[in-house]
């Protein structure tokens, strides 16, 4: 039996603009298991990203509670959340969001050195991770603007992984990439998941979704579908693909 790593209770998120309230997440009760590769899908505006950032402690829920390994993180203040994030979460963004004024290596170190003061150790780990995601040494000193989309995203993943977080949150990690780059990024993520790190990914993309073992379908801020897809195997993927297609058409995707 897997352990629950993240659990929400009546999670709600409301945005108010000009006095008009918009409820983006409504009474969500979600449990995420350790080691899962969870995919959040849904049409635009269904609250997928909001959910992702609420789960990851990037944003505070309006109502309800979020428990990470039994700790209620919805009650933490901003600084406590920052410390929570640096210790437990890694982030991969659609827009990648590397720091423009730093090299690839420094981008990873800027996160890594927050947690560990041991420069050599962190640098060694960063280099090992960079090599692992297929960024060779010639790229380490380059600036984000000199990288291709795929390279930049892999650097982004290294940054997300540098502190060995228990969970990695990815918001459309392949959204801005072409299909070749996208595959390489997804392979890295699958690899990361196999190593035991839980991943939550928001995506529009079926290829990305197929990497997950659980699909949550969000509509108007409510989970209206929860599919257990089984783990990804490059070889026998057809059945999973059909299952996913059936699920999505049922959901009206």
């Amino acid at each position, binding site marked *: 039996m897997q352990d629950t790593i993240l659990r929400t209770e009546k999670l709600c998120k409301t945005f108010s603009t000009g006095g008009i309230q918009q409820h983006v997440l409504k009474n969500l009760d979600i449990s995420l298991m350790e080691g899962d590769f969870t995919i959040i899908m849904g049409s635009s505006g269904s609250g997928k990203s909001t959910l992702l950032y609420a789960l990851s402690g*990037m944003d505070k829920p309006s109502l309800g509670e979020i428990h990470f390994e039994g700790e209620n993180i919805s009650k933490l203040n901003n*600084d406590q959340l920052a410390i929570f994030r640096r210790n437990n979460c890694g982030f991969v963004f659609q827009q990648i969001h590397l720091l423009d*004024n730093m090299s690839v290596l*420094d981008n990873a170190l*800027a996160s890594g*050195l927050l947690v560990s003061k041991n420069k050599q150790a962190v640098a060694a780990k960063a280099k090992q991770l960079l090599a692992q995601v297929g960024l060779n040494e010639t790229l380490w000193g380059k600036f984000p603007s000199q990288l291709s989309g795929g390279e930049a995203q892999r650097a982004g993943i290294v940054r997300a992984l540098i502190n060995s977080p228990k969970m990695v949150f990815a918001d459309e990690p392949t959204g801005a990439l072409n299909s070749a780059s996208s595959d390489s990024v997804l392979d890295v993520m699958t690899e990361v998941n196999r190593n035991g790190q839980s991943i939550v990914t928001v995506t529009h993309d079926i290829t990305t979704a197929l990497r997950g073992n659980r699909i949550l379908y969000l509509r108007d801020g409510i989970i209206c579908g929860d599919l257990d897809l089984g783990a990804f195997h490059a070889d026998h993927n057809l059945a999973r693909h059909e299952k996913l297609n059936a699920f999505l058409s049922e959901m009206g995707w």
Partner: protein
Amino acid sequence: MRSCLKWDGKMRIINLAIANIKTGKSAVFSLFVLIFIAALLLNIGTTVMSKMSTFYEDKVEELHDAHVSIVMKSANYKQPYGDFLKSYSGVKETETEQMILLPTATIRFDKSDFSIRTALLNADAERTVAPLKLIEESASDKGEGIYIPYGLKVRNGYQLGDNFTLTYQNKKYSYRVTGFFESTLMGTSKLAMLKFYLPDAAYRQLSEELGPAADGTLISAIFTDSEQSGALLSDYNNQFPQSNEAVDPSFWGADMQTAESSSALIVNIVAMILVAFAAMIVLMSLTVIKFRISYSIDDGMVNIGVLKAVGYTSLQIHTSIVLQFMLIAVAASVTGAAVSYAVMPAFGGVISSLAGLLWTGDAHMGTDLASVLIVTLLVLVVALLSSMRIHKLSPVAALRGGIMTHNFRRNLLPLDKAKGGLQFVLACKTMLANSRQNLMIGSIIVAITFASVFSVVLYYNIAEDKTAFFQMLGAETPNVGIQVEPGKDSEQLLMQIQQMTGVEKANILDYITTTIDGQLVNTDFSDDYGKLENKSVYEGRYPQYDNEIVVTGGLARLLGKNIGDTIKVGVGGASHPFLITGLNQSFNAGRNGASLTMAGVHHLIPDHKGMSINVYLEGVNKSDFIRDVEAEYGSMIQTITDVDESLESGTRVYISAVFAVMVVILAITVLVVVLILYLVIKMTILKRKRELGILKATGYTTFQLMTQIALSFVPIVIAGVIVGGVLGSLYTNSVLELLLSDAGISNVQFIIHVPLIVTLCIAIVVLVYLVSMLVSRRIKRITAYGLITE
């Protein structure tokens, strides 16, 4: 509320400008404050300067006072003297009046006694020149007491009803102060003559008591054009070689220009410092405006694109941006000019106490307009220039957010190798990436530090350690000054005093009035210049031989002479050529000063003796010494003065003026630092929103990011402060020389008290750090989430 903008393409440009102003209220406010301060200082400075230039002239006009006054013992007065003045070209009016002349009377000044030449006039006598006009009069004792100059009230604190005592020849004469009057020539101790009025009865009584020896004659002249008055005294001296101070110790003459230069100086210095500081602040505002315009163009690039796409011409957009800053500039400078009316009385008080004359601050439209115009025009030019690039921008490029070319820099400070904490290294990276902004902050900090150092050095030297100040003034600071009774052998007395215990050294330092090339020159002479404490010669050396002379730098420039040249010095009918061996400066003598050796003076006036002895004491009680000297040589001595004390009270007014300047500059420094950092950090945060969001997302706390931002300013600020501090330490003296060159001071050697400056610099750095931390608190509002939803 905000005006509704219409999108029909005909929206007035002014609306666009106002909308822009309203969107950045705090930034607008800080700009407003900067420009306001600049306009305020500029206005005060220029007003004071322009008013000072005609202050004396106006006063003379107002009081119907004399342009030139000459006083001597009635016994020495001859009719031709009066006739000479009467027939002198340009003289409108003359008057000769009998009065009581006391060559040295002692008056209580604050805590110390002060010896000065005194003229007592009959208050009830008829006179046309300088009629008695009281600006304050006791209602009860009208016509019974003494009327004293206004300067004694503002500088020395005499009030109506106070007891006023004159000591003359060891006899005390006490009167009640019943009124104050203004006098341009005889109202302050600066020109070595004070005038008092006694009512008829008291005047007669005193006159009888003192006998005919004290009878004096006052000759006054009013010119049609005050410009012509300057040459009268030297012409008079040429005409009557027997009537001058060297021959007749009771002789005294002064003209309006001397009076003006003696007290306008410090006021002009203060005003000039204000103007210089105002100029600096204007420059800073301009830099900030430039920075802000560039930023708002970068930030509003897309808006500009939209406006262009909708059909606005570049000129319209350009105008709206420029107009926005013009509105601020006009509003702020007009407010500054208006507020200057509220601040002027404070400066008026300082001027009143310096000049001993009432300062009436009336409207100064001209300078108001000028300062508003100057500030506005400068802002206009900068705004126009820095928004120039809007013209070059094509709408498509603007809509795409402008084309930003990436800089392929070397990766400076790689995190795995750089030494120092993570926060610090990240801060350094940020700093290195913003060179333009750093240049701006750096130069502003340099300027600010320089100004602060300048004011602190000024204060330290005038209020704390006065040695250099006295040296600058060319004032000698003995402990005790002895005025030898006329006719006694001063050299013998000097020898005897030198033998006394506790006397470190003593020398004769007296002065005569000479003429050099038609200029009246205050000429010092001493038996031994080597004994002077304050060497006022800044180039060359003191005269050693009988044919050598030192002149003030100002006089040398005026005459076109330099060291090695020969000038002809005359006293009365005699004259002798002297070789210039050095240049000095003298605050007292003003521009026209010179120093001769004793032997040199004998070329001009054979057997002339200096009657003034300076005594420097060491390890002996001063009052004991004075008592001993009086007991032993009392018969040879006219007066004996405690110089330390009279200097102390004499400099008090300067100290307060300089203190005010220092406080103003330091306060403005703090304000400017706060404002600039506020503006810059606010913009930095807006600019780096994305980056800060990423850092927050990856787990940096608000405090860490605040520290990072604050630290990213610290190195450049430290650099700026060091440069400013070093420049301040090196060039404060040069700047003062520049400021004072008009006053005949060409060499300033103020002590740069390093610990004080280091403290000041550290204080500025700490201030910057604290302010940056405070201002960057707004990072709190940036959420990692805000970054993603953007």
